[in-house]
């Protein structure tokens, strides 16, 4: 079997596995977030955290809870990192410096997991497990909860009640993320991923050098890193490290874990709004964009020009030989299409077009299928914008799932859409305007530009991966990227919640032959088109000077 065939088989097998998960997992999440009664264990948790589970919140109340919870999380994690030296199980690592602590705290709370540090030489067991891993769970749960609220906004009638944040947070964490992550961790341990609490082991390499090998609770971290589309690796090499991702089949499991919830959530959406076809339409849009992107990355990496790539038949620089081009391309596409940002290869070494597609994937706002929750609400906002233009074209006040898309809805959808380009482009321009920042680029010219572009795209879209050559650990970038992550996460969340509030207040308009059907291929195609055109138009100038200039040389 040639490498190309192997790659195609790997991608096809992934598609089949995800298709098989779509219904059961989507239905399961639906039951978790819509269940009327509270289990005893849940009631116990509510009592401990002081949540009034019986009271539903309006959008503003929900937003306040999300923001308060996240603010406390950032402060807690920041303190944890700063005070590491005084805490047990630190493996002797010092407290983390203020810039990195701020950046890391924001990064993990925003589900970005941008890492301006090397995990194995910076964080001890306690920080990894109770600091970072906990955020891997709850930041993912926050994303799913917000998506569920938006869907409730579509489904509910003439109400301002959108659910209770604490109930959603607890249920999603306890009944969705924990069980799947546990199973995932066990499978990964079986595949050879390490799970221990050892001290740093000093080993002597074949060449006689000494090497410090850090062990730890890697498998448990790895499972939620992928499942929650977090991406923060235990080790700096992330999923390219053999302790995190030893074999081709653990690689398959990891990609599967990072895609399963984002792919299944449209089903949950379809169930809650009472029309499964709507879920299929959304997942179809995601699939079209994702498959095109995967094919493009795979194609560019396989057909790379240049002496060395042609000698080895593909662009193997920066890719693990145990994975090869196909598996690496799928991982890279999947990690940038979701907000994961875990890597099993060196994105900096991808071909210029291949790397360009990875940047474009993130620029889409990570909607195909996107981060857990974030992908669904991002895609629904794009659908709202599409519905508006399409709705006008059929001669009616636009409506989506029976809810009118009026001035207020358009204002919120537009604001949502504006946030990431605004953060990304102003951050990028400001960084270029300060000459000192140019030292962070490993390469000169277009590729250096792509490195910086990648960094801001990744942070603003809460991805977390990077073009590795880029020296991001400077006060400027730690601060600027931290701000991009923070605003890139929470401004859209606030707009989405407000949109949910405004939708839920409406009485639905019954569908008729004059209503734009939003489950047909025509609409699916139009959402794809609107997404492509809007994003391409926004970012073409910078893409032209980065990946395009490099690739068309």
């Amino acid at each position, binding site marked *: 079997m040639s490498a190309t065939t192997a790659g195609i088989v790997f991608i096809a097998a992934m598609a089949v596995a995800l298709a098989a998960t779509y219904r059961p997992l989507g239905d399961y999440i639906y039951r978790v977030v819509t269940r009327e009664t509270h289990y005893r264990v849940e009631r116990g948790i509510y009592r401990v955290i002081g949540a009034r589970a019986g009271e539903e919140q309006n959008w503003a109340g929900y937003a306040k809870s999300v923001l308060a919870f996240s603010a406390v999380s950032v402060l807690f994690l920041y303190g944890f990192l700063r005070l590491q030296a005084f805490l047990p199980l630190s493996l002797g690592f010092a407290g983390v410096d203020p810039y990195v602590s701020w950046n890391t705290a924001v990064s993990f709370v925003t589900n970005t997991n941008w890492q301006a540090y090397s995990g194995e030489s910076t964080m001890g067991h306690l920080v990894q497990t109770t600091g970072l891993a906990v955020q891997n769970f709850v930041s993912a749960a926050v994303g799913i909860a917000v998506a569920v609220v938006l869907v409730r906004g579509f489904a509910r009638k003439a109400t301002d009640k959108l659910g209770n944040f604490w109930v959603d947070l607890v249920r999603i964490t306890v009944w969705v993320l924990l069980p799947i992550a546990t199973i995932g961790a066990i499978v990964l341990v079986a595949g050879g991923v390490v799970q221990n609490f050892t001290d740093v082991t000093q080993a002597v390499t074949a060449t006689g050098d000494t090497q410090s090998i850090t062990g730890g609770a890697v498998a448990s971290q790895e499972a939620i890193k992928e499942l929650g589309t977090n991406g923060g690796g235990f080790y700096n090499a992330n999923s390219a490290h053999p302790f995190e991702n030893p074999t081709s089949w653990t690689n398959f499991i990891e990609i599967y874990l990072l895609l399963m919830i984002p792919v299944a959530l449209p089903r949950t959406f379809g169930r809650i709004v009472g029309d499964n076809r709507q879920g299929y339409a959304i997942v179809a849009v995601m699939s079209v964009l994702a498959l095109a992107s995967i094919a493009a990355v795979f194609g560019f990496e396989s057909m790379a020009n240049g002496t060395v790539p042609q000698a080895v038949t593909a662009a193997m620089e920066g890719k693990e030989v145990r994975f090869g081009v196909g598996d690496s391309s799928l991982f890279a596409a999947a990690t940038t299409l979701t907000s994961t940002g875990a890597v099993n290869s060196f994105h900096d070494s991808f071909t210029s077009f291949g790397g360009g597609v990875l940047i474009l994937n993130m620029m889409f706002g990570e909607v195909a299928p996107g981060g857990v929750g974030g992908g669904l609400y991002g895609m629904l906002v794009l659908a709202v914008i599409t519905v508006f233009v399409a709705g006008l074209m059929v001669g009616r006040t636009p409506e989506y799932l029976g809810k009118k898309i009026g001035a207020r809805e358009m204002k919120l959808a537009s604001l949502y859409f504006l946030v990431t380009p605004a953060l990304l482009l102003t951050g990028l321009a400001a960084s270029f305007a300060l000459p000192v920042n*140019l030292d962070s680029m490993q390469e000169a010219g277009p590729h250096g530009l792509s490195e910086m572009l990648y960094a801001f795209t990744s942070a603003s879209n809460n991805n977390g991966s990077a073009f590795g050559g880029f020296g991001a650990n400077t006060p400027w970038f730690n601060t600027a990227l931290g701000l991009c992550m923070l605003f890139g996460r929470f401004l859209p969340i606030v707009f989405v919640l407000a949109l949910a509030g405004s939708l839920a207040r409406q009485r639905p308009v019954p569908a008729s032959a004059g209503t734009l*059907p939003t489950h047909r291929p025509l609409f699916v195609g139009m959402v794809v088109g609107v997404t492509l*055109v809007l994003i391409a138009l926004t970012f073409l*100038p910078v893409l032209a000077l980065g990946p395009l*200039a490099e690739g068309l040389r």
Partner: protein
Amino acid sequence: MSSMATVAPKAKGGLLDPGQWVKSAPSALRKLDPRLMWRNPVMFIVEIGALFTTVLAIGDPSVFAWLITVWLWLTVLFANAAEAIAEGRGKAQADSLRKAKTDTVARKLAKQDPDITSPQVETVDVPAPELKRGDYVLVEAGQTIPGDGDVVTGIASVDESAITGESAPVIRESGGDRCAVMGGTRVLSDWVVVKITAEPGKSFLDRMIALVEGSERRKTPNEIALNILLSAMTIIFVLAVVTMQPVAVFSKDYMAAAPDSAVLDGNGVTGIVMVSLLVCLIPTTIGALLSAIGIAGMDRLVQRNVLAMSGRAVEAAGDVDTLLLDKTGTITYGNRRASSFLTVPGVSAAHLADAAQLSSLADETPEGRSIVVYAKESYGLRERDAGELAHAEWIEFTAQTRMSGVDLDEHGTVHRIRKGAAAQVIEWVRSCGGDPNPRVDDLVDQVSREGGTPLAVAEHRDGEAARVLGVIYLKDVVKEGMAERFARLRAMGIRTVMVTGDNPRTAKAIAAEAGVDDFLAEAKPEDKMALIKREQEAGRMVAMTGDGTNDAPALAAADVGVAMNTGTSAAKEAGNMVDLDSDPTKLIEIVAIGKQLLMTRGALTTFSIANDIAKYFAIIPAIFAVIYPGLDALNIMRLASPESAIVSAVVFNALVIIALVPLALKGVGYKPGSASALLRRNLLVYGLGGIVTPFIGIKLIDLLVALIPGMA
């Protein structure tokens, strides 16, 4: 339906003669005032950009700089001219309306007591604008009615052509639903006392002038939402263009060997090119035409003799889910007509026809007339004059007896023929000692079941038993083409509900024949109201027509309430549209216009955004191929030079506004159909067309621009 003569000559729909552009020039220049421009954020940005390039062009003049500057100003002017042309069409109509508003002098009753029996009373001359609400004025033949009001005394024929364009005079009388008169109309015969109901300056005519001039135009909900989207896109493109600069400086610095040019130098992209790129990217096409589309939509209604009190109402018309239509006059011709004679066994059809005709000669109701006509058309019975039969005693139809007929003296024996409501006729037969054939009941039932009205015909000769001859089938005749119209509405997703005072059985039959989706039988005004509320509770938008005062609450409650011009002031006050032709079926056209308005906006937005793709392919390689020659691969149109590429894109961007003005004014083609079909068609034409057109257009313009010295 009335003739549709309009007040002003109708503006030609699509073709614009150059004269209109010339005429609109002064107004287009006036609209450059920033205080007016900022209301249209997209075009305001273009104006600022044009101002900026003017400064740059003066500072560092070149053919390129001036070409761009001139075309940027033209872009703004074209947008302003589009709006001015749309407004101009309304102004022409407003001017002719103003003529009706000449200095009328009102003859106010000296004693403000309308109970007069002759026009010979003392009056005081008062200028019309000084009339107050509640004043009584006397208007005699040949005089102009000084203000809107209701006739409280008298009856007169009134020429309303100044407002409605309808040349046939109408009757206005006190009491009932025909009492409303409008200021500016003329009394042709007789005299009336009018109670003024409008405050000065707020008459129907004033409102109409304001409406057609567009001076009271407010942005409609969808227009506001669309403006938000366009503003957001403008912000994104401003960001994309502005943030490009540090990146461009970095790139130019990296490839320092690349020569400086009018497009790009060591300071990055030049100001002229930045503005050009920005103007090409922001949605100028739809931004320029948005208000023209709205004004033209109102204008299209005015041309169909419908006055919408707000743009919001027009937009709501496009959203209508349920249409309430009165049966009488809208779906049916209004009068029941004889459509067949059904005999009982033993009676010949000719005999029944003859008896039916004779008994109806004295019945002057429309139904009675229709029986005579039917007998003539279907049985060749000559219409006999009531006077030509000797020894005949005519019994006229009255509401009490519910019968008409004749007693013929045939050589001493009296031959009595009666026609009327089945129950009365059967009663009459019994009272004359006859025994009605049981078949009669069957026939009556049959006719009722089919939605008709049965009339029985009976005769009684002296010495013989009275007998029923048969039944006349009176049918409510459904207007031609109604079923097709309703089918088209159904395809558009609009449900039609017929409202009628008939009993449910009759209503059902007519509903089935006319092809409406539902009916409301034995409807009282409050039932109508309840139906509207029910539909609205379910989230549906309701449209209805009405004319009577008892329709007013329902007209006010409906999302789209079209009052008939013949109706009462109360009805006209309550609705949000007035149909000057008083044609209830107009509602269907109003819905189409509302939809067309939204479709035009959506289509041009799509077109505008789709255009950007080609513009990028023109401008990005033009700017950056100097630094990275590989980017010339994006110059797929093979444009002559960077400068000509940018000029061509800007020129195309301006010309496309002119090219689309006719479409904006006329509205995109609209064939009723399902949403899917409409979307497919409009996406193909304006989406795909929007992608392809500029590639061709920019290339063609580039071929010309390249001929200018220094541009190739």
